[in-house]
């Protein structure tokens, strides 16, 4: 049973009258509870694929199943609710809401899914501790360093215990030292919480710690590697 399954997925962009093929005929299964990395040169289609898997974009053709749900059949509102419950996002630029404190940023997805206030507080504090920012709860994003912001963003992505966490080059805007620490944190959290992480990255360090690797070039998968065995059932 895979966490994400794609068949013959294609996506074109239209620039004026020209069709730019970004992904063509992608077949892919992403194993659950793994750290999967999409790797490929710039412009190969990593972000496009990640957006489709993350249900924030729609393909032109093909089928897409996420956590057992045929997400392409969902209407916009249902898809938004689906994302809120099942998918977490970590962005390259952190994308924290600037008027919300670290605590409130992490709390936001919990509010969206209707978690009661007391439970929200418990979970946010737990996550703040897990990412090492227990003393920064009341800080606004503007008062945090890049690495700290990305920790808050990671905590936000994990808040609803999603089946799938998507991250598009999450360390690209961090120095190598901080980036390494963030990677380590994500790797540990992924293992501890038994979630599926899907990354895109140029970074060889990221590739090195992946369970699975998917290599893309010109919108097609050129190779896949499974470096760890299926977890025991």
């Amino acid at each position, binding site marked *: 049973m895979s966490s994400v399954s794609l068949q013959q997925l294609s996506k074109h962009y239209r620039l004026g009258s020209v069709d730019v093929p970004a992904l063509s005929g992608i077949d892919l299964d992403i194993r659950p509870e793994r750290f999967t990395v999409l790797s490929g040169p710039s412009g190969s289609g990593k972000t496009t694929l990640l*957006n489709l898997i*993350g249900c*924030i*974009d729609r393909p032109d053709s093909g089928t897409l199943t996420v956590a057992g749900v045929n997400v392409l059949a969902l209407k*916009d*509102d249902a898809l*938004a*609710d*689906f*994302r*809120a*419950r099942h*998918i977490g*996002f970590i*962005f390259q*630029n952190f*994308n924290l*809401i*600037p*008027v*919300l404190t670290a605590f*409130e940023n992490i*709390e*936001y*997805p919990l*509010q*969206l*899914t209707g978690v009661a206030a007391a439970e929200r507080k418990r979970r946010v504090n737990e996550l703040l501790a897990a990412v090492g920012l227990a003393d920064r709860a009341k800080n606004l994003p503007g008062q945090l360093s890049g690495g700290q912001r990305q920790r808050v963003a990671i905590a*936000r992505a994990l808040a609803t215990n999603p089946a799938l966490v998507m991250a598009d080059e999450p360390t690209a805007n961090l120095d190598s030292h901080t980036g390494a620490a963030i990677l380590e944190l994500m790797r540990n959290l992924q293992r501890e919480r038994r979630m599926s992480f899907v990354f895109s990255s140029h970074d060889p360090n990221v590739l090195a710690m992946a369970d699975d690797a998917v290599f893309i070039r010109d919108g097609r998968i050129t190779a896949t590697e499974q470096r760890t065995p299926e977890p025991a059932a």
Partner: protein
Amino acid sequence: MNAFSLALRNLLRNRRRSLTTLLAMLIGVSAILLFGGYSRNIDLGLETGFVRGSGHLQLQHRDYFLYGTGNPAAYGIADYARIIDVLERDPVLAPMLTVVTPRLSLGGIAGNFTAGVSRTVFGEGVDVAGQNALQQWNDYGFPVAAQTSPLTGSAPDAAVIGTGVARVLQLCEALQVKNCPAAQATAHDAALGAAAPDDIAALSAQEAGQAGTQSPTRIELLAANAHGAPNVAGLTVIKAEAMGVKELDDMAVTLHLRQAQQLVYGQDAPKVTAIVLQLRHSSQMPAAKARLAELLAGPQAGAKTPALGGTPLEVHDFATLNPQYGQITGMFAAILGFIAILIGGIVLFTVSNTMSMAVVERTVEIGTLRALGLRRGGIRRLFVCEGLLLGALGAALGVLVALGLAWVINHSGLTWLPPGNVDPVPLTVRVWGEPAMILKTAIGLMLVAALSAWWPARRAARLAIVDALRHV
């Protein structure tokens, strides 16, 4: 984190832009409220003037209003004393009434025959006590003292005339009227008709019963009596009064009701042309009208109070009797409406501009929230809430500023001359004490603000998530 505290934080994010938008709304709201308060003051001032002058309601002979003004003989109310008695005793009407007073209007010719001049005039016979009681009405608390009729305590043959009448009748000097240039032409005319025609003098002397004691301000008022024959009354003018309106100034002669009745009805039973009713509050007019209609319809089965069934009377309110009331209030309402629409338009564009800028600035944030699972409706709500909050803040500040400015204006001692007035009255704007106007303006502004936020909010909600996230 509820929608409004989030909206407030977002508004505080770009303080300068939010402040300029607020300022625009503040100016708009206070402008509407101040002008609204000014025009309200004018409406109520006019109403007070008319209610003091001619009451809220008048009972007149049916058709008198349309056909009878020149013919008091044919359209008089004969048993007016009984009718007044019925009205004053009526258990429904009595608690509402402040004054019930009769009045007799007549057309005639006033002549100063010692100077050989005359002119057509409009005479009004009034009950002085009733007239003074009418003047006490001040339901809207205007800082203007009630005027006492100059006829108060005067002789039965006393009269007050308009300054225009005084001018034509060459009584300016005797009555000490200012700004009253003597006409060039009258010298010739005087030579032609030096004295009153004998018959008129005789008639007058016979009526007055005391020929010879000629006061320098004596005039003769000539009118048709109830039988169509000419009759004359000798009057002693005690004062010339400016009326504020030239037509009235040139026509008005006010005399004691008794005197006017004698002139028109002679030895016959006296009548009046109108019974003036003044109520405690203008808001009681519909109730009073309804009760009058009931009384005029006839006695009800088993009713104890005598009704006025069979009397050919009809009721007119002050707005019908004074068409200029509706005209002036209508004009101010139109100007206020125009100003409100203009300001509404400005607010619409200001807020929608502000919100559009906010949407563009926060495009990535919109994409992020959508990715996290916020629905399109949630994005829309976010920005509409911001618009609404801006509107609410603008309205609140605008109301406060308007109240402050109104207070300053009301205490500045400014005066103005209302149409038809002779003396300037204090210029006041009614903002405090007009909760309906304040509420309407505030809700209107919030609606406009929410509406103008709606389009940018809709645009924000329709953004494609991936495009929004890629926005730089």
